[in-house]
């Protein structure tokens, strides 16, 4: 009996892939939603020259910080939907009840969130860099810092999403509780780009962003799983 039970349990890798494939499939079937953070990113960046100044010199000075802040906001706005539909239709409950550790399932879900928001935002960022007259030296560091940083943003933000998923109007609250936690990522991300523009080495900033990501990968899924259990149980 126990052996048959055991054999029916998929391995950790299989569980991760199953959740990953399912979430990716759902994301691809909602193509319109995929584009929303990107359009938001584009719109806000368009507002900057309109609101501040179209002079390339001013824009170049603002570019690293502005691109990072808006990428951060775009990630924030995408977070509310992260667990919402799974919570509503009961999938989340099944996921937490499954014999696999919830760490793996949560990790897979957040990974898909990163693939569908963090990676596209990173890839679009250089294009918006052109619109913001970002100096040439800033493009590679912008790509690298966003690639590393958005991973942390997804993981930290998922904690907030998990805490507020059972609330009907969780959106604004989610931003409120997550934004202070984003401060270190923003500081090192934006300053890495700025350092590169000014001709300094930026590997320190990238290394720190990488260590944030490592720490978030270890610790955040535990908090996310705990928060999801709290949200589902009541």
């Amino acid at each position: 009996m126990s052996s048959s039970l055991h054999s029916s349990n998929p391995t950790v890798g299989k569980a991760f892939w199953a959740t990953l494939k399912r979430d990716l499939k759902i994301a691809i079937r909602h193509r319109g939603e995929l584009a929303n953070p990107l359009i938001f990113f584009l719109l806000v960046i368009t507002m900057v020259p309109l609101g501040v100044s179209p002079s390339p010199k001013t824009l170049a000075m603002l570019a690293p910080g502005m691109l990072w802040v808006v990428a951060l906001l775009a990630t924030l706005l995408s977070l509310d939907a992260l667990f919402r539909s799974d919570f509503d239709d009961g999938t989340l409950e099944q996921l937490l009840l499954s014999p696999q550790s919830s760490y793996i399932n949560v990790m897979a879900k957040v990974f898909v969130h990163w693939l569908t928001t963090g990676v596209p935002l990173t890839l679009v960022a250089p294009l918006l860099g052109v619109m913001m007259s970002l100096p040439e030296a800033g493009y590679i560091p912008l790509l690298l810092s966003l690639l590393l940083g958005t991973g942390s943003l997804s993981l930290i933000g998922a904690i907030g999403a998990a805490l507020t998923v059972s609330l009907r109007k969780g959106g604004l609250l989610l931003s409120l509780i997550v934004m202070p936690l984003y401060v270190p990522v923003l500081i090192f991300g934006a300053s890495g780009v700025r350092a590169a523009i000014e001709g300094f080495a930026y590997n320190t900033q990238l290394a720190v962003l990488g260590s944030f990501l490592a720490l978030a990968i270890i610790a955040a899924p535990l908090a996310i799983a705990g928060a999801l259990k709290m949200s589902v149980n009541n």
Partner: protein
Amino acid sequence: MAWQWFHRLGSPKWFYEKTTAWMPWLLSISLLIIISVSIWALGFAPMDAKQGNSYRIMYLHVPTSIVAMAAYYVMAIAGGIGIIWKMKLSNMVMKVAAPIGAVLTALALFTGAVWGKPTWGTYWVWDARITSVLILLFLYLGVIALQEAFSDQEMADKASAILSLVGTVNIPIIYKSVDWWFTLHQPASIKMTSSSIASEMLYPLLAMIIGFYLFFTWALLSATRSEILQREIKTKWVKQALLQKA
């Protein structure tokens, strides 16, 4: 046997009855310290050579900043105990610590701004410490907002406990990042205080810090006590306790 006190803490009734006798003592001793040290610090401590009398707001600013920070750890540790041992009392302490901490943090920012005007010529600068304290205020506001958002008390407790624990992991990282950001961006012309402080100024400051800690303890306990009454309103002992008072 040694852990008996800890198990007893599981009973809000025991805690309520035990602390009744402490409350007037805590309040009167802390007020006595704060008032008498205020007189000492404002009237008798020597004037600062550079800042004149304006430095005296330090006696409010430093204690509030220190206790504001400590309150966050009180909140987070209470939240952690609440999650691990499912202790009702600990959740109540966590809940009431958040607004007290937020008020202290806001007070620290306000007194800092008042101090900044005569010394730096401006109410606000993006100094590393000021920025960190501002983010601490945001962390408090997040916990309070989350606590308010849930109609179910048990969920509210769990959610804000998780958030305050996550915040605890983040606080050192935020502090270090902001520090690093500040040294990178700002000229180091603005320094808070010189590293040494004359003992005639230091002693009243230390006394004031003790006074503020005692006052914080009183505020925390009295808020916890009213939280106990609110949550246990349906029990017999609360009704009796309230009747006795009336």
